[in-house]
């Protein structure tokens, strides 16, 4: 520091680099979200509001040279003056801040603890929420969700989970897009009638969020292939239309201890629950045997208001995100019933059946090691 200039001065990035190399303390006086977008190597983040409280802990020696930077050099000059008033005798503010530093091609780095997804502006509305944030977004990015069926229930869930940044979406569907699907299956499109539903859905997802990996399974889920299909997934979304598929999926999910987000619809009504094996009841605890066909017609026979699977599919997507992020109270042991005509949601409580052939005391599938990665309620 030149004599007579006081304890504070403004320096160029090149001068700062030399000072840092010779042992000056380096302070980043920006906000955490700016820090996550990249910072100088060796810097310590001390946001302006915390400076007075924390600086003595970060730089205990008031005689040690300190380099302060922010985005453009304004906040860092203010911080430098504040530090001088606190007794620091050699404080330099980087003119032009990290913007100029980067523009000059000098080295900087991303915080080691946060992956690249944490800086992705696509997820800005997630990243600012404390319940999601960079860590939650990283969990979503690492999550693998399997949709059984790219139909009425699957369509909205596929769109929103892709938009949310779920890293891997698997889609099981053997069918092709039919004109009569388009009244509700919004992941498909008029010009894709006749195309495989898995391919059509994958095309839409890639257009919405090319960062999502889509795995297509152009096959019908059966007892013979279900174990292979669901292996390695964190959550399965049951958007099927038949009892055979629902039972086959349930039994395999219990064996593999994978949570299933279940929904079904009939005309103006929907039901929703989350089956977490051995934590709450499974589908067989709820309904041990299927009803006769006349008591449970599918959508093609009974009809369905297009928005009803839309709403239920989005509730499924919501529950899947809650399971992945371990947020809130998952619908475990609870069945949500939505009556669109009444405009009412009601809820009944579900119990584990000790005699359940899939998850009961004497079931073939023993309780596996508890899963810790996604601890659903």
């Amino acid at each position, binding site marked *: 520091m030149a004599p007579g200039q006081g304890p504070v001065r403004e320096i160029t990035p090149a001068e700062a680099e030399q000072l840092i190399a010779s042992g000056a303390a380096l302070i980043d006086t920006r906000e955490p979200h700016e820090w996550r977008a990249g910072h100088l190597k060796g810097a310590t983040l001390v946001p302006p509001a915390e400076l007075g409280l924390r600086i003595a802990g970060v730089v205990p020696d008031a005689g040690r040279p300190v380099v302060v930077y922010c985005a453009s050099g304004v906040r860092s000059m203010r911080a430098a003056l504040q530090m001088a008033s606190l007794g620091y005798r050699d404080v330099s503010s980087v003119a032009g801040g990290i913007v100029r530093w980067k523009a000059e091609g000098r080295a900087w780095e991303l915080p080691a603890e946060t992956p690249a997804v944490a800086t992705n502006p696509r997820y800005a509305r997630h990243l600012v929420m404390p319940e999601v944030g960079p860590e939650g977004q990283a969990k979503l990015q690492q999550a693998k969700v399997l949709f059984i*069926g790219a*139909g*009425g*229930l699957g369509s909205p869930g596929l769109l929103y989970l892709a938009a949310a940044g779920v890293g891997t979406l698997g889609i099981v569907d053997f069918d092709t897009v039919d004109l009569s*699907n388009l009244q509700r*299956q919004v992941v498909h499109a008029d010009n894709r009638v006749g195309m495989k539903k898995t391919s059509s859905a994958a095309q839409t997802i890639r257009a919405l969020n090319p960062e999502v990996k889509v795995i297509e399974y152009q096959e019908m889920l059966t007892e013979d292939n279900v174990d292979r299909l669901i292996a390695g997934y964190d959550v399965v979304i*049951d*958007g*099927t*239309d*038949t*009892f055979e598929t*629902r039972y086959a999926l349930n039994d395999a999910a219990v064996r593999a201890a994978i949570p299933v987000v279940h*929904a*079904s*619809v*009939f*005309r*103006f*009504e929907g*039901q929703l629950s989350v089956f977490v094996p051995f934590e709450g009841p499974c589908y067989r605890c*709820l*309904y*041990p*045997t*299927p*009803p*006769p066909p006349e*008591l*449970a*017609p*599918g*959508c*093609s026979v*009974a009809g*369905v208001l297009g928005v009803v*699977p839309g709403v239920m599919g989005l509730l499924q997507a919501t529950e899947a995100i809650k399971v992945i992020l371990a947020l809130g109270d998952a619908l475990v042991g609870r*069945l949500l*019933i939505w*009556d669109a005509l*009444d405009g009412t949601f*009601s*809820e*009944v*409580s*579900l*119990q584990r059946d000790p005699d359940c052939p899939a998850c009961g005391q004497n079931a073939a599938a023993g309780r596996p090691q508890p899963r810790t990665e996604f601890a659903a309620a």
Partner: protein
Amino acid sequence: MWPERRGRPAPAADGVRRRVTAVRIPPVLRPQVGNEKQVDAAGATVGEVLGDLVARHPALHEQLLTADGSLHRFVNVYLNGQDVRYLDDLATPVGEHDTLIILPAMAGGS
């Protein structure tokens, strides 16, 4: 005395007032009860209420109850949100302001 609920059945011929419970009918069974969402049925237990219900709407009988009078396993009945199988099943007592929900499995999803 409590105010009469609209549409509740008249007291039985023997003059004894019977407890009446609101029963929510699932969409798939509404055609069998004149497309009503909710109907009243009388009885002091879940079994009696369901018995009264199928006596008034005979088309429901086969869909709810087996030949020996127990509930089909594909039909769940909830008393104030609790599965009656985990209460006292058909012997569960019901009160005047209780609500029964009948819920058969639904498969639709596509």
